[in-house]
């Protein structure tokens, strides 16, 4: 990066905002087709009833809640990178945080759809909101499901605000080079930012406090999501390890998705000088560290099931590994515990396409982790009389695949219409232009 100048950074990143290419349109249309299929599945489910999905007693939480937890988890890395790494003054975050933040906002927007899809009667979604019913009875604030409403909506709001605030100076940069309608939109969105000393002072102060507020929020949200499970007395769920286990898993899957998105972006837009081996090396270290925590959590769960002497707990965990859906458990172990161990070697961490392949396995593995926890615990509950396997239908699967297209649609729009790299923050890590230094 030492050969870069402020002007060159502007030119490189503003070129990403040029009119979309034919390839982008093809990708976007394909994405919309998949999204339309997912939407059609949801409409069919609304018309037919929840029986259209594969949910059946005792597995009343299935793919939709799996998808919800998966997408909330993906949404963790963005705020982790923008807030936590900002407070630690980690310089590698500057080049990757904007993409990661965008990913966070879109992932949480995707996650937010699943409780609505899962409701069935989606038009009654407002029953989740904290207001009293016609008898003056308020929601139960002791319920983890109500905590979830507060946690996820707060996380979405704060992540979106944090994302927008970070964008303001970059939108001002985009405003100055844009023309026509784009100029008007960027002018409005940048709020008339000029970069005066007063504006920077308040901006930097506010940014630190956003980071300070968002940091505990990152850890709280997935803790609260984990309590949706841990607060119940279901075997396989009722464990005190769930909050740190879920938080580590969320960071693990989020970093995995950041790598999955950034490697093709780097190649397509020619960002090799901004997204270097050093960035992937650093992300590889986080991936390895969180993979080890997740592996430890899997081992602890198994140990506690055996050591507790509780027959229900033992039975559930035996079923997870060796039951009819045991293959899902071993996919999870392979993808989350074994394959990320390759990141121990620096040559692997600095091999960009190698990291891309590992990240794909991490995404698959983390989706299966949620599937194993949710579906296998419910299908093999206390009473053998009600044990029943879950079989997904085209509706469940279609909506799940559609969620990836929903996320992809926002991400494709983001990289074409908003500065996908943090222009100002990348300039900040370049040498400041000095007359005396140049003379020397």
């Amino acid at each position, binding site marked *: 990066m030492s050969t870069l100048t402020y*002007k060159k950074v502007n030119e490189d990143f503003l070129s990403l905002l040029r009119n979309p290419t034919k390839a982008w349109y093809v990708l976007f249309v394909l994405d919309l087709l998949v999204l339309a299929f997912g939407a059609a599945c949801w409409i069919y489910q609304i018309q037919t009833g929840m029986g259209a999905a594969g949910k059946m007693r005792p597995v009343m939480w299935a793919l939709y809640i799996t998808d919800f937890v998966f997408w909330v988890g993906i949404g963790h890395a963005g705020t982790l990178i923008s807030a936590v790494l900002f407070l630690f003054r980690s310089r590698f975050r500057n080049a990757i945080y904007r993409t990661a933040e965008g990913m966070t906002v879109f992932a949480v927007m995707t996650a937010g759809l699943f409780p609505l899809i899962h409701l069935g009667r989606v038009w009654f979604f407002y029953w989740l909101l904290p207001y009293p019913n016609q008898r003056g009875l308020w929601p*139960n604030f002791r319920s983890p499901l109500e905590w979830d409403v507060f946690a996820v909506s707060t996380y979405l709001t704060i992540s979106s605000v944090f994302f927008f605030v970070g964008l303001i100076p970059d939108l001002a940069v985009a405003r100055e080079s844009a023309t026509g309608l784009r100029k008007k939109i960027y002018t409005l969105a940048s709020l008339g930012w*000029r*970069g005066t000393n007063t*504006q920077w002072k*308040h901006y930097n102060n506010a940014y630190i*406090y956003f980071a300070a507020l968002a940091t505990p929020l990152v850890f709280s949200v997935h803790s609260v999501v984990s309590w949706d499970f841990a607060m119940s007395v279901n075997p396989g769920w009722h464990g005190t390890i769930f909050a740190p286990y879920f938080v580590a898993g969320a960071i693990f899957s989020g970093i995995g998705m950041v790598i999955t998105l950034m490697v093709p972006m780097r190649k397509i837009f020619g960002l090799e000088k901004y997204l270097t081996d050093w960035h992937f090396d650093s992300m590889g270290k986080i991936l390895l560290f969180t993979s080890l925590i997740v592996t430890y959590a899997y081992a602890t769960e198994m140990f506690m099931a055996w050591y507790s002497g509780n027959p229900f707990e033992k039975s559930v965990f035996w079923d997870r590994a060796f039951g009819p859906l045991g293959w899902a458990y071993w996919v999870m172990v392979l993808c989350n515990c074994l394959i990320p161990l390759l990141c121990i070697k620096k040559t692997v961490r600095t091999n960009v396409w190698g990291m891309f392949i590992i990240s794909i396995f991490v995404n698959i593995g983390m989706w299966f982790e949620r599937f194993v926890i949710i579906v296998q615990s419910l299908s093999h509950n206390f009473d053998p009389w009600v044990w029943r396997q879950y079989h997904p239908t085209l509706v469940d699967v279609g909506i799940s695949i559609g969620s990836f297209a929903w996320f992809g649609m926002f991400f494709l729009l983001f990289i074409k219409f908003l500065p996908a790299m943090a222009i100002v923050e990348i300039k*900040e890590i370049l040498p400041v232009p*000095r007359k005396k230094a140049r003379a020397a």
Partner: protein
Amino acid sequence: MSKKMSGVLAVFEHVDTTIDAIRALKQDKRKMTVITPVPNHEIADEIDDTQSPVRLCTFVGGLVGGILGFTLCAWTSLDWPLITNGKEILSIPPFMIITFECTVLIGGLTNLVAMLFFSGLPNLNVTEGFDPRFTVDRFGIWVPCGKDEAEGVAGVLRSHGAEEVRFDAA
């Protein structure tokens, strides 16, 4: 809508020459605004050493949010006392989660509003004291003054390395 002001705008290529010019203008007791493409601590320390009030607003917002969150849980539970999950009517640990979320939510939104308010945003009408190059790689100093003082101010700015100096009339 802010009133349009007249003044001298100088464009600098380097941060050190900008700082030299700021020092010279401070000696002349001139008010000024410095515009930079990135935040710069040297310039910030030179021109303004006061603390931003945004942090105080954020603290107050967070405090109010936390109180509101806890009050919501406690008041609604006392309004219709109904024991659920075998927990007390005023169940402090579960209520702390809503309290925390409201602290962060209201604190974060107050932080945003305070930042916008003190930064004078949104303000789409300011045209004076700005040059598009300040979003690229140039540093600017805007000195509000009348036409009679402009020549003197421009001289100070030029002598400290400004690559371009111009007078913007009101």
